[in-house]
């Protein structure tokens, strides 16, 4: 019998070693790089150690009883079956332990809710499946979209180091500054979660939730959407770059205030058809592919096909107008607010040419190629 117990102990210790061999995989909550993330980490560890302590007692008594009071060892059952004293003891002691845990939790929670005296306000809006960042004081605003390619996701290309945790435009923030976060959503509920910043805050349509960060360590912080938000919930990462104040100021200067992220529009120069197609394919894969799919077949009935679509292959102005203003109340967003004229033109050229659409377009004697100035015209026309 003793051998069996020994073997069990051996098994569990070796299992423990196997686990530590995985130490390179993250085992614990990150301490993180903000004031709050550190406080939360400490609270988490306190909770963990308390549980370990109780665990030792409970499992200790359990194991002792199972070894000591086996019938096979001739144990005779005792007859006691109640005792007020012990019941009171094991009601009060846990109660006191819980009070001891509740106190630090209450204090940290107070800190989380204190968004006063922030020096910068960053508004974050969740969309199906991207984030919009607005620096309210600086007048900068842009969308941030997953930059991992479809080929990587479909195992056709080697996966990059930050597979699924990389975006086209990172949110840049200064260190040693209290930054207030205003978090909301445009369509369904999302959740802005960056573990190492100590923030998870739901983004809910119709609500603006507050939280704050004060980053102490410069670096790149990565996270993902934390609330199921539909098809591509797993593909809307968050990347925050924390830099010294001077670098942040420079970054602000480089960016034209206004809706579009791209510094100063590269004019509305006409591009060649091939250039438009190449750019359009890339932009399509970034902005449209999650719903309308790479082969243009969509996922009907949720997301219609663009292949052979009447709208796509019809009159250019109507097609452009459709994509610019989207369909309110559906997943089809108003891309006019997200992309500049050149990118829209490129995407339109691409979807009117690909998947055999060009034949349909030509049958109706329309041109497949759409130039940035065409988009600009429609945009102007749609303004009241």
């Amino acid at each position, binding site marked *: 019998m003793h051998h069996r117990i020994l073997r069990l102990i051996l098994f569990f210790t070796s299992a423990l070693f196997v686990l530590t061999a995985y130490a390179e*995989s*993250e*085992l614990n*909550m990150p301490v993180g790089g903000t004031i709050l993330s550190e*406080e*939360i980490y400490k609270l988490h560890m306190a909770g963990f150690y*308390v*549980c370990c302590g109780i*665990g030792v007692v*409970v*499992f200790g008594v*359990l194991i002792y*009883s199972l070894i000591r*009071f*086996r*019938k*096979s060892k001739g*144990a*005779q*059952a005792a*007859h006691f*079956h*109640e*005792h007020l004293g*012990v*019941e009171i003891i*094991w*009601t009060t002691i*846990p109660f006191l332990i*819980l009070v001891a845990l*509740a106190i630090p*939790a209450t204090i940290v*929670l107070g800190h989380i809710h204190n968004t006063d005296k922030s020096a910068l306000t960053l508004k974050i809006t969740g969309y199906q499946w991207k984030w919009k960042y607005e620096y309210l004081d600086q007048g900068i605003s842009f969308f941030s979209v997953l930059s991992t390619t479809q080929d990587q*996701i*479909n195992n056709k290309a080697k*996966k990059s180091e*930050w597979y*699924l*945790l990389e975006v086209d435009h990172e949110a840049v923030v200064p260190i040693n500054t209290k930054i207030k976060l205003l978090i909301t959503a445009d369509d369904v509920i999302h959740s802005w*979660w960056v*573990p190492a910043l100590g923030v*998870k*805050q*739901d983004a*809910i*349509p*119709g*609500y603006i*939730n507050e939280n704050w960060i004060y980053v102490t360590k410069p670096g790149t912080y990565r*996270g*993902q959407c*934390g*609330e*199921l*938000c*539909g*098809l591509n*919930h797993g593909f809307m990462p968050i990347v925050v770059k924390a830099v010294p104040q001077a670098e942040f100021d420079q970054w602000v200067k480089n960016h034209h205030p206004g809706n579009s992220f791209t510094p100063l529009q590269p004019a509305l120069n006409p591009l060649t058809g091939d250039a438009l197609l190449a750019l359009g394919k890339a932009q399509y894969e970034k902005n449209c592919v999650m719903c309308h799919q790479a082969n243009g077949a969509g996922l*009907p*009935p949720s997301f219609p096909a663009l292949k052979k679509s009447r709208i796509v292959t019809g009159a250019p102005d109507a097609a452009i107008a459709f994509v610019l203003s989207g369909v309110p109340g559906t997943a089809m967003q108003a891309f006019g607010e997200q992309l500049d004229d050149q990118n829209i033109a490129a995407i339109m050229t691409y979807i009117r040419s690909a998947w055999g659409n060009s034949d349909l377009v030509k049958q109706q004697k329309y041109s497949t190629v759409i130039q940035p100035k065409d988009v600009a015209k429609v945009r102007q026309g749609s303004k009241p």
Partner: protein
Amino acid sequence: MTEAIIHTHAAADHFDAHHGPEKGFKRWLFTTNHKDIGTLYLLFSLVMLFIGGLMALVIRAELFEPGKVLIDPEFFNQMTTMHGLIMVFGVIMPAMAGLANWMIPLMIGAPDMALPRLNNWSFWLLPFAFCLLMSTLIMSGPAPDFGWTFYAPLSTTYGPKSTDFFIFSVHMMGASSIMAALNIVVTIFNMRAPGMTWGKLPLFVWSWLVTGFLLLAVMPVLAGCVTMMLMDRHFHTSFFNAAGGGDPLLFQHVFWFFGHPEVYILILPGFGIISEVVSTFSRKRLFGYKFMVAATVLIAFIGLIVWMHHMFTTGAPITAQLYFMYATMLVAIPTGIKIFNWLATLFKGSITFETPMLFALGFLVMFTIGGFSGVMLSLVPADYQYRDSYFVVAHFHYVLVSGSLFAIFAAIYYWLPKWTGRMYSERLGQIHFWLSVIGMNLAFLPMHFLGLAGMPRRIPDYPLQFTDFNQLCTIGAFIFGMAQLVFLYIILKECVSHTKPDVSNQVWEGAKGLEWTLPSPPPYHTFETAPIVP
């Protein structure tokens, strides 16, 4: 009063007391016999366990490696949704209801359930509800894909067409549960044998009584919730639609007002089972009976007023967060009382390790671990990091798989010889147990680490640094799945075997209670004249 009711019942039952069960499928379709209905519930739950389990394996297979492995995100979301709904409403709840049907009349000395026809209906709603739900998988367009929590507006404005089928099937499940709960409560109040006082009621019966009240309190709220969804989807109301002046958070309040008590609905009958099993195989009376009952009532009561702990990250005001944190922490106290009393029952007992006891001990250890992560989750600031991560996935699988499901396994091994009159193969039972324990821990322990490191739940693909642990989880899940095939074999063998009964009335040396005074297997009708409980 009580006796008068027993009397009229005995008279009514007398009419068909002398013929046995009908032959063929009619027996099962029209049965009003509590044993038949109990068996139907249990078999239904067994089938659903394998369907829901298969879906879990599809999920785990897709997560074996980063990148697309088997299925696309659209199907993945349908799998997580169906898996959750099936396991909660199709496996655990029907299994507990089946055990209640079989055992409560036997344990309180009643001839049958109080409302036998209602009983038949409440079971037969279920297969139809689930056929309706699962039929969405073969319809054009996606099946429900918004998670078993079906948050609005993802499930309303943005929900697929099949959501209406989902709503209707939830209504049917709800009606079934309400009727079952009503029946159980009424039975326990009115059908106890003379002398079966509240102070002598077995703990399994007590915990089902409390569970019955919980069900009656919250299932109508769930029905209200899905009805509001239906109105939003088709009748131009805006309960949950911010653009129309509604409130997406209202959905979460209503849902979790049902959802939190629901988890106690899933676990409380399990507590009752563990109390029976631990005491039998320690050959010792349950320690602290009164405190065990009080703790059950207390857990249920507190369970009704802590729902917002599922909504800590929704931007709730600090006062609400504090109240719900403190209230949630309080749940740990009656739960602790339970654990400590079980330990005290084991202490100085005369312990043996038959399969039911093994599952009960597995429950004791792993449910406690799930309880620990529950306490950690109640700390609001830490919950900001845990919520909707794999840490939560680990937490609720520890309390539901090694909690509720293990309790159900314990119950089945414990009472199976009573039901069939034959002992199952102890060796196979032990294999089933050990494979389950290994598979379960391999599958769910690493999920704690994944969640802490930042892996969100419900994602079909993940960053590279989560690969190792995910592979362990997948291997564990498949081991757990294989283990259930052993279980299936044991059950099927019992069902088809025609050998002579080979166990005594008492079956287990330490077993006490009315059910163990009956022959094994018990005749089709039992306790037609009420026994006198000394």
